[in-house]
């Protein structure tokens, strides 16, 4: 196919670099410097998608970020698929592959289109809103159909091969937008020595200067831009970021910039290069020079391909050397759009007419139109477009001065392109991100940024400024002021260049073009192209009583597309306001939120994916566990051995073997992950007494004690053993997952409530490796490894700790037991952890020393009825509820944390849920954890719930299943039967018993 719409000269494309690309499976040619949109237009491709709801054919409307229709699915391979790419922003490269997003089975012919044409009754306005109100089943029915028919793009099914980066930056002055105002701001800020970043979403900096008709200092505006850019590039203190969209403006001048580094080169980034980069910028001052978006006018069939923004026509002709048609009708409410007709005429194609809605248009442009011999039809409007897949003509009618009535007579003009302009909406999006409300200005006919909490200045068209000279002046001023505000005192001012520009006449505030029929009966007049919201739809919404613009928005889905309604929102507000007889400021505006344009997940994730998604913590013995076939369980960030299967074993068989080894021989657990907090200071002991529920005053040096920690509400939140090293020195252990929280808890109380106490805390979790050697043979084994610690029953009592050496390494050994067996916990400096562990195994071989993991640890402790905080407790359980009254002191003089809480009326009442043991009637059935207990399995739903299972296992040592769980008034119900109904309809019957299933007197460890 040839590029029929390409001019033979001019533009900013490189004709020496032809590029081939594929759109909807067909090959086309374009040039280096094209966007996909400009290349498609050059090739005469009219239809780039089907509309969301009515499935109408749609063409390119705009030339930038505001494009609602040309939304593509990109990618040459499955792994490089990217949805939601705006053809107007994607630069062309050789081999680019893309297709329309919404269109099924093809954009040229669409089944849903018939539904749309049949009156659109399938999806009336409020369809989504109403559907969500009705039973779920209705949505299920429609959803598949809608998704398939409309399509919203798809994510790749294979891993993204590309690298994405994050970079943190701090700058003095952050300038958003590289047009006239932004460049001017950067130039003046840079002269102060301030560190400046200027970011612009386009491939080339310069904005509208790249196609402007004005001259600066007697030269084309684009030459002035090139010179300024060259000056800025030479500054060490300035970073220029083209192809970089500032997508979010967050609190305290934090901005996120989405830089597309290689998207313009290849389908996949060259090896070693990041495809995209997210800049996270903290700026002292921000200058928003984001420009403005032209508003299309709303008229009947204004979505037929060939309808475009006037400024887009200029951009395509001047920058890409593409004239998107043969015969142009321009409709405008203002002077600026005339340029499109001038550019069209200059390209040698025919301007049918300029239809000006103003009765007496009067700027310099009128004279120029007359001079060029262009026909101007004043006081009139294009009230309707003819054609379906492409514009074939328009109906023009005179309108009244208020712009709400077509006066006739209706005249037909033949054309293939309709450019329209309703004026310019300042791009206030970023200024809204931090909560600032934009303010309506009648003279601008648009919203401008409102007051902001941010250290922010604005310059140029975002302020509603139209004249180029004023934009430059505002830019110079804002850049200078930002640098001064950021603390730079010598900021040389720059003299304003001389701009040769037209005198601009007054614009007309008109948004919705009247039709000879009422809106409800006229052909569809589109407001939001991406979500297919029409003027009639908005009128229905207000008639149904949705008066807040936020409600209108939700009712119609206006602004809900991936373009956030950049083109349509103001028109929609104006139509809503008019139908309610209100002004636009009275109706209010909707709020724009980040992100300004869609951001890829890759850029959001950066390097935080795969192995780097989340930090992992390993004990010093991890390599041994790997070598010995451990399977791992995540506990917090830790990778803990779960169990150590041997060849041919099922999981249960492994657990049975590990449990039996601990009860009958000797077994070892890597317990290094337990939180360890070193506590020192003369008030350390008193502090422990205030934090734990039990007594600590008399704990002697060389002893350790188990403690429970509660919140002020009296609910258990952590537990562990704390050892007394000296009168002013303790080591506390916490649960693996609770370590950080406990340390912060200690700091909180010390710093806020008891700062007078002399006590210091530090985490030593990573400094120590901990191995628990458990079982009847544990003493024998350990005695082979230590010569200086007397392990005998009387010298080393239960709950004692001793310092000495193990395998020649300095160690702290605790005689504590979480298994109920004779057990020694050996702590050695982490750097020796693996060495000592391996030494223990060298000696342990003859005892068949068996490593076990967290699962066996859980079973062994459950056999003994020991709780795990966070598993058997859930923040609603007091020590009393756990049957652990023995761990609560009422003698302590200080009202420790939790004491008052657990004595609240609600904690003392009868009938609380309490922790008990549960024995299933069938010994081989293991009750699933979380199962709910009921007294009568035949009670009609909703049944009376008694509690739930917190821990449940098969115990090989007991030859039956065991469980712990909460039961209402459980202590009083010993021996009673409860039932656990299961999702499959079965019911498990169990008897309430003591949670201590094994060795209730504690004789096994007492040897």
């Amino acid at each position, binding site marked *: 196919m040839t590029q029929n719409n390409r001019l033979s000269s001019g533009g900013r494309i490189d004709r020496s670099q032809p590029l081939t690309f594929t759109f909807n499976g067909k090959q086309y040619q374009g040039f280096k410097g094209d966007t996909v949109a400009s290349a498609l237009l050059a090739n005469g491709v009219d239809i780039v998608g089907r509309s969301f709801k009515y499935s109408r054919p749609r063409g390119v409307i705009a030339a930038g970020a505001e494009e609602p229709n040309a939304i593509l699915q990109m990618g040459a391979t499955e792994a490089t698929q990217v949805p939601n790419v705006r053809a107007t922003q994607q630069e062309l490269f050789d081999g680019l592959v893309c297709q329309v997003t919404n269109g099924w089975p093809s954009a040229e012919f669409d089944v849903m289109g018939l539904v749309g044409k049949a009156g659109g009754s399938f999806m009336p306005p409020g369809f989504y809103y109403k559907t969500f109100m009705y039973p779920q089943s209705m949505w299920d029915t429609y959803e598949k159909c809608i998704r398939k028919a409309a399509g919203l793009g798809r994510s790749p099914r294979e891993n993204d091969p590309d690298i994405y980066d994050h970079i943190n930056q701090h700058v003095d002055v952050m300038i958003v937008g590289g047009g006239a105002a932004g460049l001017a701001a950067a130039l003046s800020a840079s002269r102060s020595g301030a560190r400046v970043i200027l970011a612009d979403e386009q491939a080339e900096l310069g904005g509208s200067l790249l196609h402007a008709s004005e001259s600066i200092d007697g030269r084309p505006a684009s030459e002035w831009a090139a010179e300024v850019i060259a000056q800025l590039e030479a500054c060490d203190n300035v970073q220029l970021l083209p192809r970089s969209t500032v997508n979010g403006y967050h609190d305290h001048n*934090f901005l996120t910039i989405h830089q597309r580094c290689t998207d313009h080169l290849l389908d996949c980034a060259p090896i070693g290069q990041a495809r995209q980069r997210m800049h996270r910028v*903290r700026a002292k001052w921000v200058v928003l020079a984001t420009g403005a978006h032209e508003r299309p006018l709303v008229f009947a069939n204004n979505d037929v391909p060939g309808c475009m923004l006037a400024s887009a026509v200029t951009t395509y002709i001047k920058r890409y050397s593409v004239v998107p048609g043969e015969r142009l009708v321009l409709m405008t409410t203002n002077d600026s759009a005339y340029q499109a007709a001038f550019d069209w005429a200059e390209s040698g194609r025919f301007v049918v007419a300029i239809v000006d809605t103003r009765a007496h248009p009067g700027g310099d442009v009128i004279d120029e139109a007359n001079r060029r011999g262009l026909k101007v039809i004043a006081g009139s409007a294009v009230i309707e477009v003819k054609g379906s897949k492409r514009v074939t003509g328009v109906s023009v009618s005179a309108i009244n001065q208020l712009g709400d009535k077509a006066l006739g007579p209706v005249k037909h003009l033949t054309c293939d392109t309709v450019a329209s302009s309703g004026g310019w909406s300042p791009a206030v999006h970023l200024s809204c991100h931090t909560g600032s409300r934009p303010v309506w200005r009648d003279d601008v006919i648009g919203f401008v940024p409102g007051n902001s*909490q941010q250290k922010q200045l604005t310059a140029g068209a975002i302020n509603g400024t139209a004249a180029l000279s004023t934009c430059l002046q505002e830019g110079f001023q804002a850049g200078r002021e930002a640098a001064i505000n950021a603390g730079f005192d010598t900021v040389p001012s720059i003299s304003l260049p001389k701009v040769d520009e037209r005198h601009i006449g007054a614009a007309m505030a008109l948004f919705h073009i009247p039709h000879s029929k009422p809106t409800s009966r006229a052909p569809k007049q589109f407001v939001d192209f991406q979500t297919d919201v029409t003027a009639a739809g908005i009128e229905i919404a207000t008639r149904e009583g949705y008066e807040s613009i936020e409600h209108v928005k939700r009712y119609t889905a206006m602004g809900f597309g991936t373009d956030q309604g950049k083109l349509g929102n103001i028109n929609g507000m104006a139509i809503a306001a008019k139908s309610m007889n209100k002004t636009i400021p009275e109706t209010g505006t909707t709020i724009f939120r980040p992100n300004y344009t869609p951001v890829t997940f890759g850029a959001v994730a950066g390097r935080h994916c795969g192995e780097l998604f989340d930090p992992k913590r390993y004990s010093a013995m991890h390599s041994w566990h790997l070598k010995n076939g451990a399977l791992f369980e995540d506990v917090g960030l830790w990778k803990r051995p779960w169990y150590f299967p041997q060849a041919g074993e099922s999981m249960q068989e492994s657990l049975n073997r590990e449990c039996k080894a601990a009860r009958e021989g000797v077994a070892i657990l890597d317990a290094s992950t337990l939180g360890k907090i070193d506590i020192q200071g003369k008030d350390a002991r008193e502090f422990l007494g205030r934090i734990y529920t039990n007594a600590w005053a008399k704990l002697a040096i060389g002893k350790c004690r188990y403690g429970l920690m509660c919140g002020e509400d009296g609910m258990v939140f952590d537990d562990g053993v704390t050892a007394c090293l000296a009168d002013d020195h303790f080591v506390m252990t916490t649960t693996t997952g609770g370590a950080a929280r406990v340390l912060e808890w200690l700091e*909180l109380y010390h*710093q*806020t409530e008891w700062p007078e106490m002399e006590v210091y805390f530090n985490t030593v979790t990573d400094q120590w490796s901990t191995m628990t050697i458990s079982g009847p043979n544990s003493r024998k084994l350990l005695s082979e490894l230590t010569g200086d610690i007397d392990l005998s029953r009387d010298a080393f009592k239960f709950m004692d700790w001793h310092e000495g050496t193990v395998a020649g390494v300095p160690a702290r050994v605790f005689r504590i037991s979480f298994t109920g067996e004779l057990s020694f916990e050996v702590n050695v400096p982490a750097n020796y952890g693996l060495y000592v562990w391996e030494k223990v195994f060298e000696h342990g071989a003859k005892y068949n020393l068996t490593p076990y993991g967290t699962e066996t640890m859980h079973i062994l402790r459950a056999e003994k009825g020991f709780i795990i905080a966070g598993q058997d407790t859930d923040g609603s359980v007091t020590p009393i509820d756990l049957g652990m009254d023995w761990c609560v002191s009422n003698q302590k003089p200080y009202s420790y944390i939790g004491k008052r809480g657990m*004595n609240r009326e609600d904690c003392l009442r009868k009938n609380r849920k309490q922790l008990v043991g549960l024995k299933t009637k069938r010994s081989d059935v293991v009750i699933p954890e979380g199962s709910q207990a009921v007294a009568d399995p035949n009670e009609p739903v909703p049944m009376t719930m008694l509690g739930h299972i917190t821990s449940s296992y098969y115990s090989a040592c007991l030859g039956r299943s065991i469980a712990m769980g909460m039961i209402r008034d459980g202590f009083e119900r010993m021996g009673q039967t409860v039932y656990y109904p299961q999702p499959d309809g079965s019911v498990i019957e169990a008897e309430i018993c003591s949670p201590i299933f094994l060795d209730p007197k504690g004789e096994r460890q007492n040897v």
Partner: protein
Amino acid sequence: MFYIYCPYCQEHREEEEFHAAGQAHIARPADPDNCTDEEWGDYLYFRKNPRGLHHEMWVHAAGCRKFFNMTRDTQSYEIKEVYKMGEQPQIVSEQDSIARGTA
């Protein structure tokens, strides 16, 4: 994303290093055992949720581990001041100063 000045480190750091720790200036009752359930419930659960100036506690969790106070506008998210534990705010809302005066 806030930019927070830690009064102990005496530097601005990113919000990622901190977390909020609830309303500031809530003293633990001196004699909890003699509080009524209602008084204890007030201490435990009842918090202000003002639109505007709010005094809250933050902790420099991934930094110096110190708790400190912040006066923040909950509407604009502007941080008006930070001050150390045990100190009083310089900036208070009108309502607060009235309450303070009568207290």
